[in-house]
């Protein structure tokens, strides 16, 4: 049975497909049992199954299978990340030119950012996938698709000024200590990409906080404008929240920050894609936002009256727009492996992430980005939440008798 998707494709393409198929067929024996490169079979297998959905048929149980697999799942997440990536690239250029007071076209802003961000992405994928392949070969298991998403999440959570060797270090740390020591994709209990960011945040604080958010590579004929400040809205917020950017700037993302995190709007497009396709849990996304809003409102109520600029006075919905909250809630908290697994658990997990994010932001100026730490914290607590939900479920089942 030929899928008619293929029929529509140009004959030229199908010709090159044939060539690829024959090439794979001819070299396959070398990677098989007893072949010259038997050791490298997982690497070969990863490449082959990347190009062709294998001809495996069902052996036991159901005779037909849903069309989705992990590759498709991860690919869908990447599509959902594209808006933040494109906007992030443009914003890198925009912030750069803003700092120098230069007016350039939208395309120039984007291209500037594109050439700055691309190396970070390339390093992240090359190093991370390299480590994955090495582990697959050593431990003789298949290369899982998890890193396709992780490899893009790492650059998006970095400032554009991050040195490339640090990206490489983060990719290695995330793959080895975030995943492989637990047994690979599906076995980790913390979000690997966030773990990588936290690692850099604590190991190299000078590169992950302070005046590092805008690419200040020299612009010939221009010098920094007087009004330029390297502080992000999250830092401004701790001293005087009224000094933050406008609500619309924060919503659309015309602010300084990590590459992918600035635009709440782009994150919402991603959230829409994840929720419609069913890949991301809408319960987690919604409950994160609700949790942050609730906690924000509670703090508004408790805020000291005599200090009108105290961060507790920040309008609650600002927390949705500031920093990486939207990015974390949409792309990080929803990682199905490290989130809670039960439906009820997902609501609790999301609410607590929202609540802790706001608490950390308001009461701990040392860690302006509360969402990263609260997601990691709740990753640790997710199994406990699930445990309580399941125990309650068992109790209810027994009562039914």
């Amino acid at each position, binding site marked *: 049975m030929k899928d008619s998707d293929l029929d529509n494709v140009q004959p030229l393409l199908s010709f090159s497909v044939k060539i690829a198929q024959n090439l794979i067929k001819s070299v396959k024996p070398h990677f098989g049992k007893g072949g010259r490169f038997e050791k490298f079979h997982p690497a070969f297998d990863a490449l082959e199954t990347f190009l062709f959905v294998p001809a495996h048929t069902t052996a036991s149980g*159901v005779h037909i299978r849903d069309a989705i697999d992990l590759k498709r799942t991860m690919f869908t997440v990447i599509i959902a990340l594209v808006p933040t990536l494109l906007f992030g690239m443009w914003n890198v250029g925009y912030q750069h030119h803003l700092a120098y007071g230069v007016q350039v076209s939208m395309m120039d802003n984007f291209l500037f950012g594109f050439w700055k961000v691309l190396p970070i992405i390339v390093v992240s994928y090359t190093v991370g996938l390299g480590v994955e392949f090495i582990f697959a070969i050593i431990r003789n298991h298949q290369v899982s698709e998890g890193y396709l998403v992780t490899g893009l999440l790492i650059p998006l959570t970095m400032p554009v000024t991050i040195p490339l060797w640090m990206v490489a270090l983060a990719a290695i740390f995330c793959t080895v200590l975030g995943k492989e020591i637990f047994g690979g994709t599906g076995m980790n209990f913390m979000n690997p990409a966030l773990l990588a960011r936290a690692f850099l945040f604590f190991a190299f604080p000078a590169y992950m906080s302070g005046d590092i958010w805008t690419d200040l590579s020299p612009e010939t004929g221009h010098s920094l404008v007087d009004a330029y400040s390297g502080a992000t809205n999250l830092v401004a917020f701790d001293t005087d929240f009224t000094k933050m950017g406008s609500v619309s700037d924060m919503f659309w993302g015309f602010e300084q920050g990590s590459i992918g995190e600035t635009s709440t709007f782009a994150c919402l497009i991603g959230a829409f894609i994840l929720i419609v396709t069913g890949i991301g849990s809408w319960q987690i996304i919604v409950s994160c936002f609700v949790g942050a809003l609730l906690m924000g409102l509670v703090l508004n109520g408790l805020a000291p009256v005599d200090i009108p600029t105290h961060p507790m006075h920040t309008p609650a919905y600002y927390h949705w727009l500031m920093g990486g909250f939207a990015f974390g809630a949409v792309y990080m908290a929803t990682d199905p492996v490290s989130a809670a697994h039960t439906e009820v658990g997902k609501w609790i997990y999301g609410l607590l992430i929202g609540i802790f994010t706001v608490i950390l932001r308001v009461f701990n100026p040392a860690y302006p980005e509360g969402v990263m730490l609260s997601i990691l914290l709740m990753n640790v607590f997710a199994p406990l939440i699930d445990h309580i939900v399941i125990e309650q479920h068992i109790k209810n089942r027994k009562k039914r008798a």
Partner: protein
Amino acid sequence: MAKVITIKKGYNIKLNGVAENITSSLDLPNLIAIKPHDFPMLIPKLSVEVGQEILAGHPLFYDKNNPVIRLPSPVSGEVVEIVRGEKRRILEIRILPDKIPKYISFPSPNLKEAARESIIDLLLESGCWSYIRQRPYCFIANPTDIPKAIFVSCFDTAPLAPDLGYIIEQERANFQLGIEVLDKLSNGHLHISIHDSTKEKISESDFQRLSHHKIHHFRGPHPAGNVGIQIHHIAPIQKGEIVWYVHPQDVIIIGRLFSEGRYRAHRTVAFTGSGVVHPHYFRVMTGQKLSTILEYQLREGSYRIIQGNILTGKQSSSDDFLSFYENQLTIVPEGNEPQFLGWLLPGLHKLSLSRTFLSWLTPNRSYNLNTNTNGEERAFVMTGQYDKVLPMNIYPVHLLKAIMAKDIERMEDLGIYEVSEEDFALCEFVCTSKIDVQRIIKEGLDYIRSEG
């Protein structure tokens, strides 16, 4: 009007090749076979030998652990061969049927007056007892047990499933008589479920002689038709409890025993799937050679022959014989061709419960699905998928984990006694990581039966 039970979780997989409501009769074949393997957990001991002439209804073998459970011959004729496998395990008992069938005649008791015990005796003697199966574990019921209830599901929601209303319609009187027999056995705990989709052909008026509250109306998608789902919603099984169930087609065979006094094992089997030229029903004999049905009906190409439905059936071949409880044959194309960047294409012709393929924009389309796994097995990643297609108060993933950890107490806590492989078939279908969910459930049930 009884209460309507609406099943919300689940999914109807729409495939091409639904059987048209037409029945072809086939001549009695020149060879039939009964396979002990069709009966889980049964250890066969032969009651016949090669060369013996037998009548229809004569026992062929019995269960070593419970000798009253006897499996009857559906035809009269000569036992021509006992096919054995490894360690002399009996695989098939082959019979050369007479052209004109001769039956053992059994006394037909007056149902109104007969005691429960005498009905059981007749069912055992005729071999019709083998149609009464139990939950948990899905094997032949033990006649000395007192079941909590007896269930008959009068609709099948599985992909391409036979229209049970249509089958019942053909022998309504025998069906009603069979139901009365079960009513006697159940001590007043007989539950019959019907579905909106079959309400023209089978309705409450068919069961007038039963008291009203035992008829349950169901609404909703597969697996609403699975008897396990119905038991869960009506009379959930606790540890130590037993529920019996009988398929409507088998109810008809029991009805024939009481109306005609003989064991007549014809079945109406739906012949379905996109590999069939003209999908419709066949009236055949239990144990009929499949090639006699498949002749002239198979399309050209590489197809898989499945006894049963596409989710729970067993792979078979045209040399095989129709299994004892079978009501459906499904023929679907094999998916043994690699697909270039298959995971990347928009996928208008690929069925997925997730909306990651564009096919979700055309929800009413029927599909020609093949047996490709559409990806390789991976560690468990996506959560909440199984819950969407399992309409039970059970956490499927946690139950599966308890099974893999061989933790009996946890399995019991999480509801292992209420489930069977077929109830988890949709979970296996939707699984992104291509995990063999049904195999794990079966392992769990086998383990708890041997240890518990």
